[in-house]
């Protein structure tokens, strides 16, 4: 520690060029010179790259040689490099909280490139303001928080499964939370995967079994996140456990119950194209391999009598008296892997999905062609069970058309307001081109004499082996037509007339097909908004969860200790989801590997003389982190450090201004506000 740190400020100011990112617009030399005369400033330097080894060394040297006790860095956003420089200060023997950054890149050079003069003036002001604040900064000691070496993975699709397996393999206790009765997610619904044409469930189900067998992984099926509290290293999560009405331990999945169950309902796993019983298992390979009672349709739950399943179950696994309950689980890190939901193609009524029986979506197609599906793998069109000889695929349904999507919908007032999942999106869903290429291939595989057409805008085949796969499809006779059809009409025999403009030849094409498959996009899963709010996560403009940094922290979030895997961040294919799951698992494991975690000490300091015990702070604190307690001087507010997150609501509300927020004190902010406007 430096001596005399509190007495007088010795400030070093470092203005970064950031190559030309800053220096290309802002006159860095002028900014440097303007800072020279500021009170307390001992040294001012400009660096080509302050974050580089050289830049950092010059700061470390100055701290040592010039006895600096405050550092101001004018460079990029503190959201990017505050940690880097705080570490530097710490290594150089200074308290990390004696750093202040002026954001002259994101908030200046990058947005005022059209006015260098004004940008330079603004940069000077930002630096002055940072110096003013730096003068008043105080060293703070960081409290240490405990780390619970456990992880919760939310979402049991391929991303969640992979993340859980990585973590379980490292010996970290992992809870895999899935809201459906079985893990597996959308991948379990697919027939084949591109470009290798592996059977989807054949490669997924061994992983699912591995999860079930891993002693470090606990699967919480039929469960949803209700509330998340705490911070990195120490989260408390309330999980709503919904009843299965079947004892998971006792059920062996023999299926006697379902065979005798008198209630038949549409099977959502088969996209409502087949039927299942009210007691059912979503698919034969389900994990946990236990049946589940659908209480909405079960005769016992709806009419009060039946209990046939209980009678036939030899193992006595049926438990009608199970109820929903909340379980609190403590973990050190969370991985969110809640995936996506397919775009609701009814949002584009011009294509007739939901009105024309033989217009299906790509996920419907997967079930239709799957050996386990409603037709046992025989590709038949849903309308009349005929074998389709002419099949068309339409690309970008719900993707890449935020603006053009509305025309059709407005013309169909009978459809009611468009659901969130039916809003066409501006982004490219990335996987649909390859899904279509695969599915077109599958049609030819089943019926080599079939005619297969693909209507597309662009074929996007970026990925290992993707382009080759697409070329192969072309050479085997799949017809690719550039141009998106405007509308589909149904003919009397249930066939579909598709009129489009072939963009390559300029001809108007008028073709009729037996079946049309809409390549539906991927949209954020239902419930994601609520989940994001519970965890305080930001969502990107597209509605998916926002990553910590688009390039360098793709599996992290803005919240320490919460990580992302799979499509919940953005649509991606299976290998990318698995890769991101690995990254998220590694990041979570890093958190769990620590004994303690340092918590930013941004809490309140209460002046007991001024405090009148009015309880306003206690009423407004969202975390219950400040309480009024009776002392010998009367009722006084007391901060509960571990619970406090440092928002500052108490400080800004205190009726007698008895509360000072550490690191964001009134005097620091006031000094900043003054200096930021001072005319130089």
């Amino acid at each position, binding site marked *: 520690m430096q001596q005399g740190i509190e007495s007088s400020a010795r400030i070093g100011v470092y203005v970064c060029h950031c190559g030309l990112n800053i220096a290309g617009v802002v006159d860095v030399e002028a900014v440097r010179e303007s800072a020279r005369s500021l009170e307390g400033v001992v040294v001012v330097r400009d660096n080509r790259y302050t974050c580089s080894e050289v830049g950092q060394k010059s700061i470390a040297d100055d701290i040592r040689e010039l006895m600096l006790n405050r550092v101001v860095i004018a460079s990029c*956003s*503190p*959201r*990017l490099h505050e940690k880097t420089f705080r570490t530097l200060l710490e290594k150089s023997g200074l308290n990390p909280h004696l750093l202040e950054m002026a*954001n002259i*890149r*994101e*908030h200046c050079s*990058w*947005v*005022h*490139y*059209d*006015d260098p003069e*004004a*940008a330079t*003036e*603004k940069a000077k*002001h*930002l630096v002055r*303001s940072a110096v003013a604040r730096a003068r008043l900064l105080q060293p703070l000691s960081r409290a240490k928080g405990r780390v619970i070496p456990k992880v919760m993975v939310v979402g049991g699709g391929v991303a969640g499964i992979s993340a859980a397996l990585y973590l379980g393999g490292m010996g970290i206790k992992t809870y895999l939370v899935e809201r459906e009765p079985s893990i597996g997610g959308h991948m379990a619904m697919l027939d084949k995967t591109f470009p290798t044409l592996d059977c989807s469930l054949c490669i997924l189900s061994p992983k699912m079994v591995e999860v079930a067998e891993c002693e470090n992984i606990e699967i919480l099926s039929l469960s949803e996140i209700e509330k998340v509290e705490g911070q990195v290293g120490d989260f408390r999560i309330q999980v709503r456990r919904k009843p299965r009405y079947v004892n998971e331990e006792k059920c062996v999945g023999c299926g006697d119950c379902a065979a005798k169950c008198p209630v038949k309902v549409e099977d959502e796993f088969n996209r409502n194209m087949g039927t299942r019983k009210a007691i059912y298992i979503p698919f034969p390979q389900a994990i946990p391999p236990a049946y589940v009672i659908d209480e909405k349709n079960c005769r016992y739950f709806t009419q009060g009598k039946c209990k046939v399943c209980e009678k036939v179950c030899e193992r006595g696994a049926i438990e009608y008296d199970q109820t929903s309950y909340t379980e609190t689980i403590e973990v050190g890190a969370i991985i969110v892997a809640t995936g996506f939901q397919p775009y609701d193609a009814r949002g584009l009524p011009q294509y007739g999905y939901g009105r024309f029986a033989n217009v299906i979506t790509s996920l419907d197609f997967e079930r239709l062609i799957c050996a386990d599906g409603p037709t046992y793998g025989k590709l038949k069109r849903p309308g009349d069970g005929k074998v389709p000889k002419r099949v068309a695929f339409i690309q970008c349904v719900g993707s890449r058309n935020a603006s053009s999507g509305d025309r059709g919908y407005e013309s169909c007032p009978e459809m009611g307001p468009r659901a969130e999942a039916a809003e066409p999106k501006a982004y490219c869903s990335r996987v649909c081109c390859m899904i279509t290429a695969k599915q077109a291939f599958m049609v030819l595989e089943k019926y080599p004499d079939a005619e297969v057409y693909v209507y597309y805008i662009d074929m996007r085949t970026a990925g290992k082996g993707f382009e080759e796969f697409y070329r192969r499809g072309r050479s085997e006779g799949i017809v690719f037509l550039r141009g998106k059809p405007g509308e589909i009409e149904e003919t009397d025999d249930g066939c579909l007339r598709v009129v489009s403009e072939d963009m390559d030849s300029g001809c108007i094409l008028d073709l009729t097909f037996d079946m049309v498959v809409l390549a539906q996009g991927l949209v954020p899963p239902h419930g994601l908004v609520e989940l*994001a*709010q519970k965890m*305080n996560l*930001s*969502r*990107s*403009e597209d509605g998916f969860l*926002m990553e910590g940094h688009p390039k360098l922290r793709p599996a992290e979030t*803005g919240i320490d200790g919460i990580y992302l895997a799979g499509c919940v961040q953005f649509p991606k294919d299976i290998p990318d989801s698995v890769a991101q799951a690995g990254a998220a698992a590694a990041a979570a494991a890093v958190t769990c590997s620590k004994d303690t975690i340092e918590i930013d000490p*941004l809490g309140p300091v209460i002046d007991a003389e001024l405090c*009148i015990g*009015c309880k*306003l702070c206690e*009423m*407004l604190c*969202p*975390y219950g982190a400040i309480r009024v307690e009776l002392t010998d001087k009367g009722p006084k507010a007391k901060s509960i450090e571990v619970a406090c997150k*440092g*928002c*500052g*609501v108490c*400080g*800004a*509300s205190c*009726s*007698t*201004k008895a509360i000072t*927020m550490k690191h*964001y004190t*009134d005097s620091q*902010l*006031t000094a*900043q*506000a*003054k200096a*930021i*406007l*001072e*005319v130089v």
Partner: protein
Amino acid sequence: MAEQVTVDVNQAEGVLETERVQGLEQASGTCNTIEAQRVEAEQVEAEQVKVERVEVKHAVDAENAFDAEEDLGKEGAFEPVIVGFLCNWCSYAGADLAGTSRLSYPTNLRVIRVMCSGRVDPGLMLEPFLSAADGVMVLGCHPADCHYMTGNYQAEQRVLCVKALLAHLGIASGRLYLDWVSAAEGARFAELVAEFTNQVKKLGPAGCGESQEGLSREEFIRRVRVAKRVCEKEKFRWLVGRRKALLEEENVYGEKLQAGKFNDLMSFVITEECLRAAIELLAEEGPISCKEIAEVLGMPAGKVLEHTAYLKRAGLLELHDVRGQSPRYVALR
């Protein structure tokens, strides 16, 4: 364009006149409710919309008037200075995104980072006006998205109340601005900055005879000081802090406070506290008698005496000496 600006200022000035009338001089007389001020604020807004329409029309009319247009773009044009308090998690990140996306916006804004919009004390919102700011922005996370759960709601309550306070003092409440920007809304951030900059341009420089308030610099600063002092007052702070709960939650008897009632109460507190703050500030400059205070503030001496007595009891003023027959007071701060 120069022509348009005049139209703009003239029209809006008429509306603002009402706000000005509520200035400190008349504070004791009328006790206008915040509700009324809100209605006026709406009128101002409606008027501004109208003004914008007029502008469009003029723009079409004056398509060939290049000279006028050039004038506004150059030296003479008023470039407001704006300070923004941005929360670390949403709005500051949104501003960063505007940067990484290279979205240009006016250079008028200077940003101060806070962890949460809920950290921005009512007094802190006014601080920049004492320096050279013409406008202050507070940006937070969207409702329900706050990183700290409810901080943004508190920011909203404070801005509403401080706006009422400013309006009471005859300062255009449009100089204070609150909005929500998520971490994904770089473009929205840039738009809001441009919008607010324009809004402040229309209001004119703070503390300048030609601004909408028509206050001199000295008088503007004096009023902001009064406002700032009020923001430190226990009564005001308590009402601000409890506003949301009082209006939205039921008490143990299952009753909710009506908005009108709250506004009456707030208006009363603002009126009283503004007067006391003004007296305090005068007494801080040196010994002063009630009569002198009454003269400076244009208030009945009896009213001033009443509040001076209160301040003395509260230990904020003390008797300094007696000159002639008048006791003179000084502030104890």
